């Protein structure tokens, strides 16, 4: 199967799904960036009519048609969609594979009669893809090379079942149908061999002699010819789908109460863990889907800090999430799917292992995250920034990060930092120096000891241009409480009024 306008079709389909029909009436080109500027990879029909061709530079095409709309080419998405289509075609044959950027190979041997023979099956496949919005040229042949050639270059849709018919069908096709590279194509054109038929008439010995140094198939016409005519085998790699691990229960009698639901969730968790144990996988993310009698469905997802297949742990986490399930008229189907799994082998306990009691750390993290929420349980990681608020960030707990650079320790840093610095009213201050007293949270603090200023300038590459610098002081009041206070800005720095003071952190 060949999709001549796959990228454009996919783009149109996505745009139509998003409801932006106006875009479809414009001349669209899909471009990707190269060292020489954007190059057009695919053109829509309107753009082609305007003169754009794939392979052109965007600038050249714009000279011909200034109204072209350039949209980035989604290589990865196209490949992913093609993979999905290839899997979808397995309904017509036992295995399939993705061929290049715009083709799918399907092995339909022995399965065509189920769909009424080769011809009706091809019609069916073509209708299927057309209904999805994909232009498709399709051919059927005894081997994949011939199918490729026929789908790309044959005039009409052809279904060839007997190998003896192949030379006749292939002869009128141009030599490009042999999947040769451009250099070899040029050479053959210079030799006057334009069609496959011309090539077949050349004595085999002379072809062998002429191309004796060419090993790769796409540079050697003889190898390709043999492959197309079925004299040489071409190995293919089938696409195999790995369905996610899952366990399911359908209930004859819908359940209305929490207790049987918990019981069944426990049962299918045990089932799933047994499957995972055979596959030597541990689960990281789970999705529980509950179907009600009236067709409504509900999701509960769960993520674990480390791969696990301990049913008790997972059941315990799920039970907390089941309290707010609304059963309605009853739940009659429950499916548990392991969305994300990681390989997990059984681990051998060592004899000299430290005798640690209680739960394990990943289990603790899972419990905390499940009850309190993912954003409330965190591990702090340093970040390269001078700005105190930015110099640490939160990360998911449980991962031991690689060696990280902490603050270099030239200056002391407070033990705790307020999320937002609290303004303090300075009672007595020399204009440039530090305040002698300040009022904060209703109490008066007399500064006894102070160290500073430590000037922290705003990060101009990150902050706004009018961000003010901060002069930090480490101070101690008469009761021995130690604070980190700062003056925001300087007098006359042209970035606002007179500088004000803030309390930002607490020293030990």
């Amino acid at each position: 199967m060949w999709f001549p306008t796959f990228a454009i079709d996919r783009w149109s389909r996505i745009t139509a799904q998003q409801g932006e029909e106006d875009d479809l009436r414009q001349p669209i080109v899909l471009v990707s960036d190269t060292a020489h500027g954007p190059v057009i990879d695919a053109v829509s029909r309107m753009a082609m009519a305007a003169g754009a061709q794939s392979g052109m530079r965007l600038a050249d095409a714009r000279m011909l048609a200034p109204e072209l709309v350039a949209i980035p080419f989604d290589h990865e998405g196209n490949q992913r969609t093609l993979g999905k289509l290839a899997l979808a075609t397995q309904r017509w044959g036992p295995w399939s594979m993705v061929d290049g950027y715009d083709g799918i190979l399907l092995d339909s041997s022995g399965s065509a009669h189920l769909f009424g023979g080769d011809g009706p099956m091809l019609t069916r496949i073509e209708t299927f893809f057309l209904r999805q919005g994909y232009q498709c040229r399709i051919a059927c042949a005894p081997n994949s090379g011939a199918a490729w050639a026929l789908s790309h270059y044959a005039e009409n849709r052809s279904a060839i079942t007997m190998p003896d018919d192949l030379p006749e069908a292939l002869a009128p096709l141009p030599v490009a149908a042999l999947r040769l590279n451009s250099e070899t194509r040029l050479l053959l054109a210079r030799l006057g061999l334009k069609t496959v038929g011309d090539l077949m008439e050349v004595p085999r010995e002379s072809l062998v002699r002429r191309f004796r140094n060419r090993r790769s198939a796409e540079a050697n016409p003889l190898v390709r010819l043999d492959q197309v005519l079925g004299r040489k085998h071409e190995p293919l790699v089938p696409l195999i789908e790995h369905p996610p691990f899952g366990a399911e229960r359908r209930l004859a009698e819908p359940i209305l109460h929490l207790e049987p639901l918990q019981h069944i969730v426990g049962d299918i968790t045990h089932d799933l863990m047994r499957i995972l144990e055979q596959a030597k996988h541990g689960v990281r993310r789970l999705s529980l889907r509950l179907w009600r009698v009236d067709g409504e469905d509900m999701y509960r997802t769960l993520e674990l800090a480390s791969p696990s297949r301990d049913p008790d742990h997972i059941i315990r986490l799920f039970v907390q999430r089941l309290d707010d399930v609304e059963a309605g008229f009853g739940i009659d189907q429950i499916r548990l799917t392991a969305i994300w799994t990681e390989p997990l082998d059984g681990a051998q306990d060592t004899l000299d292992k430290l005798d640690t009691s209680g739960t394990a750390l990943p289990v603790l993290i899972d419990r905390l995250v499940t009850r309190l929420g993912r954003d409330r349980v965190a591990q702090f990681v340093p970040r390269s920034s001078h700005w105190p608020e930015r110099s640490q960030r939160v990360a998911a707990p449980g991962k031991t990060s690689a060696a990280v650079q902490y603050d270099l320790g030239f200056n002391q840093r407070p033990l705790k930092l307020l999320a937002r610095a609290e303004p303090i009213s300075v009672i007595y201050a020399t204009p440039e120096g530090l305040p002698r007293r300040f009022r904060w949270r209703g109490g008066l603090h007399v500064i006894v000891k102070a160290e500073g200023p430590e000037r922290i300038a705003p990060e101009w590459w990150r902050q706004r241009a009018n961000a003010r610098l901060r002069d930090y002081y480490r101070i101690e009041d008469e009761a021995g409480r130690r604070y980190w206070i700062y003056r925001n800005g300087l007098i006359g720095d042209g970035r606002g009024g007179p500088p004000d003071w803030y309390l930002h952190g607490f020293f030990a």
Partner: protein
Amino acid sequence: MDALRASELPVALGNGADEWSPDLQLPHSMWEIFGSMDDVAGDALALAFAQKHCAAGGEGWRWLWVQDARSTRSSGRPFLHGLPPPLRSGFIHVEAGSAADALWAMEEGVRCGELSFVIGEIVGDPKVLDFTAIRRLVLAAERNGVMLYLLRREGFANLSAARLRWRVTAAPSALHRWNSMAPGVPRVRAELFRGRGLRPGQFWLEHGVGSHEPDHSLLVVPDLRDRPVEPDYRATG
């Protein structure tokens, strides 16, 4: 009831008349530390206690800091670059919304044998923090041998099952080694007002948490009398 609890105690706890000292290795349990909302003297002392009394695991220190919403608001979050260097990498911060959630997280924390210690922070006297709740925490901590320091900001010292109860206020710091105007090694005034098997007492403690003295560990400052004299003495030459 009292006899029952005393019988549960390990024998190594002392004979009832012992003076507390930083070098005394007590069995891991739960200590309550009362402090003010406006300073972190209690937090720093808890970290100093932990470094002194709890052992690091195989992969360094692993510990948990649980805060309820009010304590996050009033005293901020821990700042990575200000923590003692060995404690920086292995800690998990839990921001519980309510006091009940914070207590639950602390209990889950002390149940985890891989942790070295747990610090819990609660502001005021929430209803859920009654004698029973504290007793639960004490039992869980003692069963698993994970130390729990419960910081009570602006809390009232009601009846409690905590093994040691401290009241901590900030104290003027030691003299800075090079800069007489700067705050030096931090000190706190800690009052042990209830200690099972220990004589209550007041201590001036000096700890190296947050200072630039790498090997400074917890020690009792004998007397403070001659300290303020020093700058004057220097000024007069």
